[in-house]
């Protein structure tokens, strides 16, 4: 059987997606048998030149978000050569946690990181990425003004969300590679995740109609292990988040923060959640919620941006609007 040409390339990554693959254990040997790994920095002795020289790749897998110009070049090269391109992990799919930096423009961000931080000793205020050097080789890739998911630049064929994706998703992706050997091409836009929300897989007792009277934060009091988080007033993104994660956080008695991204047909995870929460606040109430009461509720949730968009700010509608203004 013919070997499938496979390449993995990176944007801004934490390494968790590589670890997710290693956790596949013996299944990795199946992958090695089915695929010729042309390039994968963490796993094989690949050379960038080999990737440059390879004209066509059957399946290209991209980890990480786009933070620097270099990441964008790497992505575009992989797209150009790959018959099938996979967005692997939440950062590639939605920008992930690094996308939270998008409330600040990159130069401000560098000033904070390299001048204003408490232990920093930088009297001249030098900023990495903004200096020119006599030796051209010393130049650093410049940060782009915002973090982006890869679909902002290229067409994505397969999506594998998760921070990191669970081993079950890795196994399924390896099966996709094996199917390719027999020319079975997966449908375009395939999600290696469930088509329903996390709530459909959560074993906690759920109310018929969700009513929220007040919000609580996770450190503020005991969390019952068998009852819906939202019913307890704890923000949980389960209703608007794709299932397929194995409900690992929920089982550890912690609410969902949305790393699997929005449920199908929802573009903006945070907005959808906001409207769900708003209706839960009003549910079955005879009277309208007064302004003062609303303010109190809002005070109980001081960072809706961070909570509702923890993993998807870079892919959100507000962020795209900002991106247009930036002309980036």
């Amino acid at each position, binding site marked *: 059987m013919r070997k499938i040409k496979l390449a993995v390339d990176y944007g*801004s990554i*934490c*390494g*968790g997606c*590589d*670890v997710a693959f*290693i*956790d596949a254990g013996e299944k990795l040997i199946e992958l090695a048998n089915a695929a010729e790994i042309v390039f*994968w*920095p*963490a*796993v*094989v*002795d690949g*050379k*960038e030149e080999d990737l440059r020289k390879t004209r066509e790749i059957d399946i290209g897998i991209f980890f990480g978000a786009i933070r*620097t110009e*270099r*990441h964008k070049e790497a992505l575009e090269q992989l797209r150009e050569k790959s018959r099938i391109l996979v967005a692997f992990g939440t950062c590639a799919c939605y920008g*992930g*946690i*690094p996308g*939270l*930096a998008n*409330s*600040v423009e990159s130069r401000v961000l560098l000033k*904070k990181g*390299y*001048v204003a*931080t*408490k*232990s*920093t*000793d*930088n009297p001249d205020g*030098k900023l*990495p*990425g903004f200096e020119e050097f*006599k030796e*051209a*080789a*010393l130049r*650093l*890739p410049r940060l782009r003004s915002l973090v982006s998911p890869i679909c902002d630049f290229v067409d994505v064929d397969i999506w594998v969300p998760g921070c*990191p994706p669970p081993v079950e998703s890795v196994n399924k992706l390896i099966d996709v590679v094996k199917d390719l050997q027999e020319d079975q091409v997966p449908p375009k836009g395939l999600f290696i995740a469930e088509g329903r929300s996390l709530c459909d897989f959560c074993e906690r007792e759920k109310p018929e109609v969700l009513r929220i009277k007040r919000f609580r934060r*996770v*450190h*503020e009091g*005991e969390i019952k*292990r068998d009852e819906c988080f939202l019913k307890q007033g704890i923000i949980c993104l389960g209703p608007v988040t794709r299932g397929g994660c194995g409900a*690992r*956080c929920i089982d*550890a*008695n*912690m609410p969902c*923060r949305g790393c699997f991204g929005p449920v199908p047909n929802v573009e903006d995870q945070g907005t959808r959640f906001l409207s769900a929460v708003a209706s839960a606040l009003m549910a079955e109430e005879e009277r309208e919620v007064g302004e003062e009461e609303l303010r109190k509720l809002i005070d109980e949730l*001081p*960072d809706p941006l*961070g909570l509702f968009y*923890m993993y998807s700010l870079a892919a959100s509608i507000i962020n795209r609007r900002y991106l247009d203004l930036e002309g980036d």
Partner: protein
Amino acid sequence: MGEKERKIITIEPVTRLEGEAKINIILDEEGNVKDAYFQVMDYRAFEVLSVGRQAEEMPRIANRICGVCSWAHHMAAVKALDQLFGRDPPPTAKKLRELSYCAHTIHSHIIHFFLFASPDLFLSPDAEPSVRNFIGLLQRHPELTKRALKWHTESERVQEIIGGKAVHPPFAIPGGVSKPLTEEERVKVIEKAKGLLDFSLDSLSFFKKNIIENEKYRDLFFGDLYRLETYYMGLVDPNNQINFYDGKIRVIDPEGHETFKFDCSDYLDYIAERVEPWTYTKFPYLKKIGWKGLVDGKGSGVYRVNSLPRLNVSKGMPTPKAQEAYEDFMDTLGRPAHATLAFHWARLIEMIYCSERMLELLEDPEITSKDVMNYTGDYKGEGMGVVEAPRGTLIHHYEADENGIITNSNLIVPTTMNNAAICMEIRNSARKLIRGGNVPEGVLNRVEMAFRAYDPCLSCSTHALPGEMPLEVVIMSEDGRVLRRLRRG
């Protein structure tokens, strides 16, 4: 013409890893090494993106700094937040954190030692590059390699059983942890901890037989090529012995004398960080000694962290089998030990310690108590937390407003702490190996070994895992014209 003729050697993982880290070696007119730059190529801005967040969410946000050592950031963050919220976690919560964290350290050390460093150690640094990787190791030492994979997975399972997820855990909350350990889970984890101890002991015997008892390797690894005489830093318990989860920060000088010992809360009096515009990684140094540039010795504030430094600052080990291994280590290398490649040896001793410590904690009758959260305390609005990450001392520092919203944060990560040492190590080994413009093929791996000892997970953003880090040396003129290209493989 002089300037124009200066040559630059660029050593880069030929892969996209190059996007994260790169080495440039600059030759003078005689073709000798003038300088070397180790560059980290990405900035992930966690100090900025944490501002505005609800403080209690930070353990689940900060762990995304690194997927290889996510537990270290998880723990450093939650410890800072315990302080910020003024909460002392119940004893069981602290023990569960330490227990899961010991499993994490073992998992991380197994990845580093077996999947990354071992091909150098057990297949010889001069072996054919195409086989000198993890697959080659599997063929040459199948039993050991398969066991390493198995016990890596088992240590991951321990983290999952205790904390829900092995990578990027949701487990720790200011004041405690999200769930207790059941008796059934305890029994499962004990079995795994015993297996991890056996595996760690066997790994050390294998290492000793193949490296220490082999004269050629012993000289290469522990001779002058890779050696710096620096200050060392690590966390110690009240007996001045190693602890990964808690303690005071102890610093010793290159002669082994205690120079400083301080609480994490005072870290700003002791540590400062330089910025160089050619890298996204800063250069921490000992503030009271001062920044003298990239030099070692007692007069320079450069210090090292990670496994060997931890053993150097620790007065013996708190558990019996680790103590035995420690004595043997110090008898062989002297104390403090300065040989950089001894980082690998020290990792194995730490795996033994962590396994023994896990067993101690698992036998503690309190470990299955249901009392794992403290919801009360006097809110302080500021907190610092420290742990020993697998790669060295890690500090998180947060400030928050009266609503518990982060207003300021500062993180000092271990690979950053070792940045100056890594740069020096690369420069020194390059100086010894490159003469008169002559760049022998072997220089690639020899230079690579220098920084591999510190970690493949450079800057918490390169994290190469198994197999090898492919390297390329490009000798070029200043205008970027490639004069010669050497490639391993």
